[in-house]
């Protein structure tokens, strides 16, 4: 089983990397770009589905820092899970 955890900087935390990328996107010609945020995507594979409570705990304590980041767990769709 494969799932993805998306970690993004909180809206309230300045993301200087996002600002730099936004400026580069604009300079390369997409001048309507308004806002860019840079986060990370972690792909986790399990041999059996993980315990959801434990998974959330690990997302909160290790994979993200709740002071500065939010996370979303993306479970596979039924079609993907059947692959």
């Amino acid at each position, binding site marked *: 089983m494969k799932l993805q955890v998306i970690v993004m*900087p909180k809206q*309230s*935390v*300045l993301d*200087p*990397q996002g600002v*730099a990328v936004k400026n580069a996107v604009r300079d390369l010609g997409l001048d309507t770009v308004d806002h860019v945020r840079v986060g990370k995507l972690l792909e986790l594979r399990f041999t059996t589905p993980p315990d959801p409570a434990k998974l959330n705990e690990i997302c909160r304590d*290790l*994979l993200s*820092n709740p*002071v*500065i980041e939010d996370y979303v767990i993306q479970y596979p769709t039924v079609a993907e899970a059947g692959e």
Partner: protein
Amino acid sequence: MKVAVIQFPGSNCDQDCLRAFTEGLKVEAEYIWHKESSVAGFDAIVLPGGFSYGDYLRCGAIARFSPIMKAVQDAAEQGMPVFGVCNGFQILCEAGLLPGALVRNRSLLFVCQPVLLKVETSDTPFTQSIERGRILRMPVAHGEGAYVADSQVLAELDCNEQVVFRYVDATGEPVASANPNGSAHNIAGICNWERNVVGMMPHPDRAWDRKLGSEDGRLIFESMLRTSSVA
């Protein structure tokens, strides 16, 4: 007095910290490898700078789960002085021993330069021998040193006098131009509510001898020494 300097894989200021004690202050100090689980026999703990676990995931994010950190946590709760420099500060924040977090410098650049710090409180084991308002000079060297916390935490830090060091100009003013990394409120170092845990981004371990360009860092280590001789 015996000081523990914790070594994580990727620590690179462990020798600087150890020598500040053994050569600078002539006190006993020993390394503790992060896989150890006890700090028994030590009077103070230092988490040195570096790039523990290659800064993977976030600075300090993996080191905080090293076996030794449980012992550090317990010792901190029992009142032992715990001091984190640079990556050590990041680890203490990740571990929840200090509030807030340290994120990418506002400039996106790694900064490596001398800075001026104002001592905002003498009420910690690491500043008790330094008069409040004194300006210290020592280097910073980091890519992720911008201190952030939500507005409530920042207000609490101010209210409880938990800001220990602030980046200032030569006149002691916390102006934007004196802030090397974009830290909120020019914060360079803080303590916990109980005041025995202190973290700072600048490096006193690189400023304890005239040969290093400044001796101001020595004042911090000397303060720490005074604590444990009393304890």
